[in-house]
């Protein structure tokens, strides 16, 4: 493999990382809203949020991406394929992250909130100061897991025309007749990226360990 081709692979890995990280970030924000809606006492918030989660967890990501890519032009929106990919990945991970967060929120012991009640924290203050920080700490391992899953699942966005790591490897394998080499390099790059993500997760967990639920 020439240095120029390796550089192409690295650039493609960069695309994979940028799109995945952006999706996870956007997905976390949407996930927080969906989770809040699912935990709401109001049925008209709970019900659509439940529907959102079952749809994006129940339909294969590949189908979701193809649906979004073809749906947007059908309703008169022309968007670059990168945007379509970003929307698909973000909505999909949002559904999973909403469920992870919901698990975190429902694991906050009731007694901690009763203690907050007794010192006069309002419901919103309790959410901001007690429930959310504890729930987020409980969710960190699941969040790292989800980040790794999305990094790998991002190989699917080539179907809507985004030239990311897997597609680049395919192209170079076809043009050089060296499939084994390029797929091995692609695999190695995915492994390296995910190793970094996992290491970052361990660091975050260690930093939060002192404040863990006893």
């Amino acid at each position, binding site marked *: 493999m020439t240095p120029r081709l390796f550089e192409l692979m690295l650039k493609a890995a960069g695309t994979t990382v940028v799109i995945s990280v952006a999706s996870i970030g956007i997905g976390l924000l949407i996930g927080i809203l969906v989770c809040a809606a699912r935990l709401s006492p109001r049925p008209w918030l709970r019900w659509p949020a439940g529907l959102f989660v079952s749809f994006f967890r129940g339909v294969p990501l590949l189908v979701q991406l193809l649906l979004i890519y073809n749906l947007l032009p059908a309703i008169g929106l022309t968007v670059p394929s990168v945007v379509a990919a970003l929307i698909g990945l973000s909505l999909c991970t949002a559904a999973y992250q909403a469920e992870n967060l919901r698990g975190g929120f429902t694991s906050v012991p009731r*007694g*901690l909130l*009763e*203690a907050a*009640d007794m*010192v*006069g924290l*309002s419901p919103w*203050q309790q959410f901001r100061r007690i429930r959310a920080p504890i729930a987020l700490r409980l969710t960190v391992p699941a969040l790292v897991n989800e980040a790794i899953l999305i990094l790998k699942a991002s190989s699917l966005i080539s179907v809507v025309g985004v030239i990311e790591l897997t597609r680049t490897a395919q192209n170079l394998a076809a043009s050089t007749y060296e499939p084994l080499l390029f797929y091995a390099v692609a695999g190695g790059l995915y492994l390296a990226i995910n190793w970094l993500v996992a290491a970052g997760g361990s660091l975050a967990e260690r930093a939060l360990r002192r*404040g863990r639920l006893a």
Partner: protein
Amino acid sequence: MTLPSSAIAIRGLCKSYGKAEVLHDIDLEIARGATTCLIGPSGSGKSTLLRCIAFLEEATRGTILINGQPLGFEEQPDGKRVRVPAHQIRRVRSGIGMVFQQFNLWPHMTALGNVTEALVTVNGLSRAEAEARGMAQLRRVGLEARARHYPSELSGGQQQRVAIARALALEPKILLFDEPTASLDPELTGEVLNVMRDLGADGMTMVVVTHEIGFAATVGRRIVFLDHGRVLLNGTPGELFAAPRHPRLTQFLETYLDRGAAMLLKPA
């Protein structure tokens, strides 16, 4: 306005869970500036009664006055019971501190953070001012050296003392304790009881649900013995524990010989 003579006045309080009635028509006055101990067998309703006083449980019927002010429900002249607005519940409850069996410290905050949280978030004190007051409360329970520790780094007895400091920081008129030593090892029980004893000596109004019969007999000014959701006995330790004793109380004390009840049962 003159303060009513009792810190807490409970009138006709009933509490049911579905069909099961756990508190039957409780009438009880809790004296100001004294320690009142609620004792009784498991399932007698003593913790439920305490949680009703804190308004963590809503009574099915009856009213509770805290320093003369209704908490949760108010009786109207025509006898109808109505819920008071949430801001009023918060105001009346701000005069009450609560200490739980499971401590319920917030795990993501240090000891000092737990104590200062409400001072900053609810009362709007500056961080410096809140920390000065928080440190004073931690000193009172003997834990200023542990201020920067997280709950997971403290022993059970230390955690409970931080929880007491957290309740004290808001300068409540009344402190409620729900079996404060029940989840502690015996060797850690003493340090918590000592802090409570000091508070009692300082004239704090305390209501303590406890299985520590020895503590109840020595620190409690009043003892309330609950049985099957009713107040069976209510008096000074002298009145209750001296012979002739109520047969249900004797039966109860016999199951608590190792909690300091032995000395009460000894023939004088």
